[in-house]
């Protein structure tokens, strides 16, 4: 129980740090980009939006920094992120909620898939040490893990969309279909997601394979694996319950730590594919200097990563009794 509380405490601190960074960065930057942007918009946008911007960036000079800070935190607690400039007069919250399902479906699924596949391949590679799988895959993935995601995305588009015409070039769905839970739409959305998904899969799976392989090799040298052999257990049982079960524990921690990296790559992949998710919207907001939307999206990405880490923690607690007992 104390373990759970401590972890939750850590997440609150991290969230607070992200919010505070969000608050401080525009105020610490020289030249005040927000101010110049607002003077550009003056007269073009509705006074309400102007006011929201003033609050968001603390332009109102009569407000003390501390007061502004608490107002900001209060707004965030009520999910008031202001008005989006890009999608005026829509609220930021509404926009974010529209992009979220796309990213969850694409990045969420692919990340979990990459983790599971990579862990399995790493386990088998280490188990059949020096075999064909072990000889071929790890070296290949050491190299692909260094590929820039966005570049691979460009190559994929060029080869499979432009040259071969197998998949759509960009977007999350064909604009001629209506967005609904219909077979036509879902299958179309799936077809659009194949290339970005494969791109993320190929570039992120290598990390999981390598760490799982190395963990497993370390675990295979443990006494309890030799003990399992001494007991005459079937190789299958030893591989899963003695080697795999223990080797995946550090991989779960690694999952939590590399997630930021995967998300960063996914943002660029969405950008390259014009995929209507959080990452694409994030870069759109940067381009359009839509700071309210940008900050909200940054917070949301942080929260998403935190939730994923919490899930990894939960899985660790289920798989490792020592974590449960640690007080």
């Amino acid at each position, binding site marked *: 129980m104390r373990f759970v509380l401590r972890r939750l405490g850590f997440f609150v601190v991290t969230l607070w740090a992200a919010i505070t960074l969000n608050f401080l960065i525009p105020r610490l930057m020289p030249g005040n980009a927000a101010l110049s942007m607002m003077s550009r918009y003056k007269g073009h946008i509705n006074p309400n939006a102007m006011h929201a911007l003033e609050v968001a960036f603390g332009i109102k000079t009569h407000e003390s920094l501390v007061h502004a800070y608490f107002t900001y935190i209060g707004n965030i607690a009520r999910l008031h992120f202001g008005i989006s400039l890009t999608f005026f007069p829509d609220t930021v919250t509404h926009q974010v909620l529209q992009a979220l399902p796309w990213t969850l479906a694409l990045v969420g699924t692919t990340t979990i898939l990459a983790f599971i596949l990579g862990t399995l391949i790493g386990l088998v590679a280490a188990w059949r040490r020096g075999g064909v799988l072990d000889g071929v895959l790890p070296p290949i993935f050491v190299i692909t893990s260094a590929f820039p995601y966005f570049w691979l995305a460009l190559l994929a588009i060029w080869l499979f969309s432009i040259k071969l015409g197998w998949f759509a070039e960009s977007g999350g769905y064909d604009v001629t279909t209506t967005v609904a839970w219909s077979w036509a739409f879902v299958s179309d959305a799936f077809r659009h997601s194949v290339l970005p998904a494969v791109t993320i899969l190929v570039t992120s799976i290598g990390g999981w394979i390598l760490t799982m392989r190395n963990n497993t090799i370390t675990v295979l040298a443990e006494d*309890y694996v030799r003990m399992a052999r001494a007991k005459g257990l079937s190789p299958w049982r030893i591989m899963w*319950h003695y080697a795999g079960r223990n080797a995946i524990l550090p991989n779960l921690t690694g999952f939590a730590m590399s997630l930021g990296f995967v998300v960063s790559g996914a943002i*660029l992949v969405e950008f390259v594919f014009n995929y209507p998710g959080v990452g694409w919207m994030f870069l759109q907001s*940067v381009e359009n200097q839509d700071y309210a939307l*940008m900050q909200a999206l940054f917070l949301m990405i*942080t929260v998403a990563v935190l939730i994923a880490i919490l899930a990894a923690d939960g899985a660790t607690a289920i798989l490792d009794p*020592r974590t449960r007992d640690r007080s």
Partner: protein
Amino acid sequence: MTLPSAAEAVVEPLEITRRPGADLWRAVAGNRKAVAGVLLLAFFLVLAIFPGQIAPYSGTAEDFGRGLGPSSAHWFGTTAYGQDVLSQLISGTRQSIIIAFAVGGLATAIAVLVGVSAAYLGGVADGVLSLITDVILVIPIFPLIIVIAAYERNSGLFTLVVVLGALGWSYGARQLRSQTLSLRSRDFLEAARVRGERRFYVIVFEIIPTMTSLIVASFLGAALYAVLFAAGLQFIGLGDPNSQSWGTMLYWAENNEALGAGMVYWAIMPGVCVALLGAAFALLNYAFDEISNPALRLRRLERKAAQELEPAPAVAAAPDSEKILEVRGLSVAYASDDGPVVAVDNVDLDLRRGEFLGIVGESGCGKSTLLYAIARLLGAPLAGEITGGQVLFKGRNMVSMTERELRAIRWREYSVVMQSAMNALNPVLTVEAQMRDALKAHSDLSKREIEKRSKEVLRLVSIDPVHLHSYPHQLSGGMRQRAMIAMALLFTPDLIIMDEPTSALDVVAQRSLMVQIKELQERLGFAVIFVTHDMSLVSHFSDRLLVMYAAQVAEFGKTRQLFDKPLHPYTQGLLEAFPSIRGENMRLVGIPGHPPDLLRPPAGCRFAARCPHAHERCAIAPPLYDVEGDLVRCVLYEHDREAVAAR
């Protein structure tokens, strides 16, 4: 007393070299991934240092036809602005190299500072620093950098390096902290503290040099991430659009839809360069992982050694029902970087039903290897191979049995008890689950019967059956050890092989566990091979004793006889090294010197260098002599006696 010698040096994960340099270079040169990484990196370094001399044209001049295809004048064609793509690539190298090294250096410096101080200072300082490290580790850095760059548009190289460096150190810091923590209590640091050396001195000169490989790994990781992130930032237009860099090239290529417009190399080659430079760092990082953790390297004995295995006779020569185990000429070798290390050299022994055989010797004399060779459990980390001899267990030669054949007799007919139950029990399964695994592997018992049998064996070793549902870490040290013995009794095997099962316990617990083992043995009638480095421990329990020295049998005889009248000078030395429980007070004398290196054992008697009776006859390797039933390998006993074995 416990000097590690060759056999263990191979087995243990090598200490991270304290004095890198020659060793490190040799290791790098011997690793294909490292060589590939170094070559790639060197290639880009040359491009970065001499772009003017190498590039055919200026990277910025818009002198040529727009969007030309590849030709001998322009290998990779030209851009939509009429620039030579190859020249741009070469000019862009410098920025990526600068970013990689500057960010790598900055991030590593912060990581060392934070990680080492957190671990070394401890207390509140550690708490605060670790929290900061973990928070930065978890906050998605790339989006954060984008946010910063969004406010500080077209930021220069300097800002980029500072931001990437200031955010990219947390992973390295975390690892350095835990490594420092594990070093804190090491002897050499204690010594430095006792000498009264200043804290700063201890950190800089004692701790940091031991972590070279981690620091290198941290640098390589940060450099890799810097190259990728910087290219990503420039690609989405958040860098200086006029800078000469691969990311900026990709930005312009994408803006001009280079791929669709046929300027393929313009869009592909900068990415290839980023990927190759990244791959150089990734390969080096991976290679360093292998170098600093030898367990990840796969060593194999040369084929020749493995093939020397003599064909085993179909049936044992003389099946003696009383002899449950006969080991004949057993040899085991380990592969090492310098050649095979023979850790067990031509060992003969036999064991009768219900007999208690002790095997003693210093650490690294090969006794554990012998044990695991008999049990056919060699393999990582004891990656040794049986290179000759036979192990006849109940008449069957185990050396020639397949893993499948072995599985049928494992645990049913012989079981194993290891040195530390903490390591030998699977930490994530309950005691019950681990017993069930063994029972289910060899029988069709029902759920109820499995539970019943598990409870029975726990009672045998006086553990309350409620502990069946405990995980290993929830039991005390003594209980864990007894639980492991209980597990070994599940099928009441004919033979239990024990590797120092009591040495992890305190003296009192040790004694009571020995008494319990002996009682169980007399009650259930199994035979025991018991390995220990503590002669006094087995003196009252073993029927016979085998003394090993430097991979060979030094002396083998009845325990009583061996204690009363030790023949081999080594046995005599061992006995003098331990206090007698009943005997009169006498000065304890150790054995000077240490065992020979098994990679190159001496040609003659292996003990000669440490022997008080050594003379010129010892230059010839002595055979075993039979002295009133006691076998001894020493020329002192050659008079009027035939050697037992040729060697």
